[in-house]
């Protein structure tokens, strides 16, 4: 296995609010290998977007990256000067955002905005112009040469996102971070964009970090996945393995909540009981315990650490699904309320 191009180590990003400190990202570590596509999934507020923004030091006020390392080619992106990080943004690590409608400047011509991504990193105007048309072709915008002059409002949503991807790819970056790039698009266009990203990942060898709340997107595009919950990584591993055999109850619940075409008629779609925790006052012990059907006494008090549960797969759970299946009959579980399978309820342990 080649060495990773991006190493994130114990990243902590906090927001100082009037009510206290919100630990949006709390000790996240992961590696990204050249050319791979890594998915980061989680609910809203799980810290996945903030993790991505922290890598490029783009966390909005009042957020601060308080500790940790982001090593890109063994250079810590959190320590280098503003000038150096600016050079890396867009050239080595590019980012595309959720809503292509608002990510493009409404008063500037689309092609010109793609040019700018290159002009910011020292290409000449003529070079940028010809490469822009090449890029617009590559992201499959029809009649690219004439679309160059269009304003963003003259493009469809899908075309706008394609233009954003063209901007992201402009300087042939080593890493492309895509923050929910398909969320604002309709389903058929989503599929086209994912296909495009998959092809570009294969053709150009750009490593992709795909941030999404959609397990389907991960299954379609990624080779490895990180599952985040309440600012922490709860499970990480190869996509096939995790879909086949999730070990963290949260991952298991997420997968159970996806509608399946091949589901039996009587099978019910399961949501996850409860709401995502308030990060101002995160739960003690395991952060998922207030919503977990398989919790045991230990989960209330002790924080589980990530440990290997299968080759290449780590999970932070005291129980893990293997035990939940054997001892608590997880597969036949109907009642998924917190503590339902293990029978541990807060009143009983105090």
């Amino acid at each position, binding site marked *: 296995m080649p060495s990773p191009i991006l190493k994130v180590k114990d990243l902590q990003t906090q927001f100082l609010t009037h009510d206290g400190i919100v630990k949006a990202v709390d000790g996240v570590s992961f590696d990204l290998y050249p050319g791979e596509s890594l998915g980061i999934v989680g609910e809203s507020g799980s810290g996945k977007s903030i993790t991505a923004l922290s890598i490029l030091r783009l966390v909005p006020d009042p957020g601060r990256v308080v500790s940790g390392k982001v090593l890109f080619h063994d250079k810590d992106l959190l320590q280098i000067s503003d000038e150096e990080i600016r050079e890396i*943004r*867009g050239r080595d690590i590019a980012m595309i*955002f959720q809503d292509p409608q*608002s990510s493009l400047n409404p*008063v*500037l011509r689309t092609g010109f905005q793609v040019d*700018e991504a290159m002009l910011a990193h020292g290409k000449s105007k003529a070079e940028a112009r010809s490469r822009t048309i090449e890029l617009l072709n590559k992201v499959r915008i029809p009649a690219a040469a004439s679309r160059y002059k269009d304003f963003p409002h003259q493009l469809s949503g899908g075309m706008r996102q394609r233009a954003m991807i063209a901007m992201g790819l402009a300087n042939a970056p080593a890493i492309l971070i895509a923050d929910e790039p398909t969320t604002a698009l309709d389903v058929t266009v989503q599929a086209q964009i994912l296909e495009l990203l998959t092809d570009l990942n294969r053709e150009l060898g750009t490593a992709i970090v795909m941030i999404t709340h959609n397990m389907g997107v991960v299954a379609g595009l990624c080779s490895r996945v990180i599952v985040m919950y309440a600012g922490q990584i709860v499970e990480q591993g190869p996509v096939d393995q995790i879909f086949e055999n999730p070990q963290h109850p949260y991952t298991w619940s997420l997968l159970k909540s996806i509608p399946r075409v091949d589901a039996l008629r009587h099978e019910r779609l399961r949501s996850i009981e409860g709401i995502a925790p308030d990060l101002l006052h995160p739960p003690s012990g395991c952060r998922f315990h207030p919503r977990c059907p398989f919790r045991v006494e230990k989960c209330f008090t002790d924080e589980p650490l990530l440990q290997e549960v299968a080759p290449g797969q780590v999970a932070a759970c005291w129980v893990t699904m293997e035990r939940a299946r054997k001892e608590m009959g997880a597969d036949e579980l109907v009642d998924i309320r917190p503590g339902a399978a293990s029978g541990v309820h807060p009143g009983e342990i105090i």
Partner: protein
Amino acid sequence: MAATAAAVITRPIAPEQASLWSDAWRRLRRNRLALAGVIYLTFVLIIALVAIVWTPYSTFRVGVGIPYSGPSSQHWFGVDGLGRDTLSRLMAGAQVSLIVGVGTQVLVLAIGVPIGLAAGYFRGLFDQVVSFLINLFYGIPDLLVALILVFLLGPSLTNIIIAIAVTRWMDMARLVRGQTLSLREREFVEAARAAGAKPAKILVGHILPNALGPIIIQATFGIPAAILFEAFLSFLGLGVPPPTPTWGGMAAEGIVTIRISPAMVIAPSIALSLTLMAFNFLGDGLRDALDPRGRR
């Protein structure tokens, strides 16, 4: 004939894509009052330009007609107390008004826009200082500031422009700061940052173009305000010093003898009022034309 045929063939099949500005211009043209304003202001501009090389009589020469005489075929708008032709002086006065109006706004733009952009984008101490200064200047009566400056610098056209700009820059700075504050949070600014754009590039390339509509409207309303302020200063005898004709100064000279020669007051007053009105109509029209919600 051949050229016409070639032109027909090379014309693109798809309709010309409307840009933001051509779209705004199209909507401005539909606004009758704004269009009337534009036509009138063009007329005033032409008069002011013609007055550089030609006026019916010399602007400064006294005794070209009978003092205090009313409108006649020789002197359309009458003759003033020194026997100078009012029409000629009115034409030359248009120059002063336009120069003061436009000059002030150029200066206001040069001060207000960079300050507003920097304060809104970088926030922090600079923003606090700027906001304090804006409030401070709003607190002091602008007439006082202008009078002190005219006394200190001496009354001349340039100094009056400077004095008016000093009392007017806050409007623009505050507007641009507010626009920048809201625009800097927009996703395309974040996207530009993520693409490695420098702050100067973001300010000039992304934020300024989006704030241009409100800036243009503000400047258009600022011009008549400056013209009126200059006329007011001239009326008080603190404007551009005589013998340079200004509309405010002419009205002031005529006010004492308004009973015997009303034309001396009425002519410059009407010229001034029409010009102010035209600018305000134009400003209103621009506001409607540049407002993205008002697309018709």
